């Protein structure tokens, strides 16, 4: 799985019929040691109700079809978790409740 930050959403009205009613979120992959964006963007289907500004991690490839929301859908990236905190080398580099955004 890859860590990323939800930085926006994507709306598409003309799309594959099977993915009607699924939320697309714009993710930017992050480097967990610095929590900075890597300028590497992914559009992922939202499986857990993630909101903008939250840190998440997503599953890519065929495993992204293994969630209830994306089963049988043409998805190759699905958000599977909203991150509460990240610890690197024994100290917290990210804690959701202490984010000042």
């Amino acid at each position: 799985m890859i860590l990323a930050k939800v930085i926006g959403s994507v709306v598409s009205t003309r799309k594959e019929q099977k993915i009607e009613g699924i939320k697309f979120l714009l993710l930017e992959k992050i480097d967990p040691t610095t929590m900075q964006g890597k300028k590497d963007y992914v559009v992922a289907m939202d499986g857990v109700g993630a909101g903008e500004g939250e840190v998440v991690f997503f599953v890519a490839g065929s495993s992204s079809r293994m969630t209830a929301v994306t089963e049988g859908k043409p998805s190759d990236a699905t958000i599977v978790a909203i991150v509460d905190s990240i610890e690197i080398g024994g100290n917290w580099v990210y804690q959701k409740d202490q984010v000042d955004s």
Partner: protein
Amino acid sequence: MIFGKIVGTVVSTQKDDGVQGKRYLIVQSCQPNGDLLNEFHVAIDLVGSGYGEMVLLSQGSSARQTQDTYQKAVDCVVVGIVDLVEEKNCLVYQK
């Protein structure tokens, strides 16, 4: 598989309820001799690996071929802890 070193953990309460009771580790990719690369993965720990240990990561749909992750939304798992790496007849890494 690829080499990686355990550098941290991720805590998440609101997640896809696929895999229960397993730790989500942050693994930094590394060279066979242990030199770190600038690439990070979140992997599910199946072997009880600890901080700083070099491990083997299995990615993609193969990550679902274990008892705990079968048919689950997982694409990266720790499948082994490395004790020793031998390259061109010399020991490049030893735990």
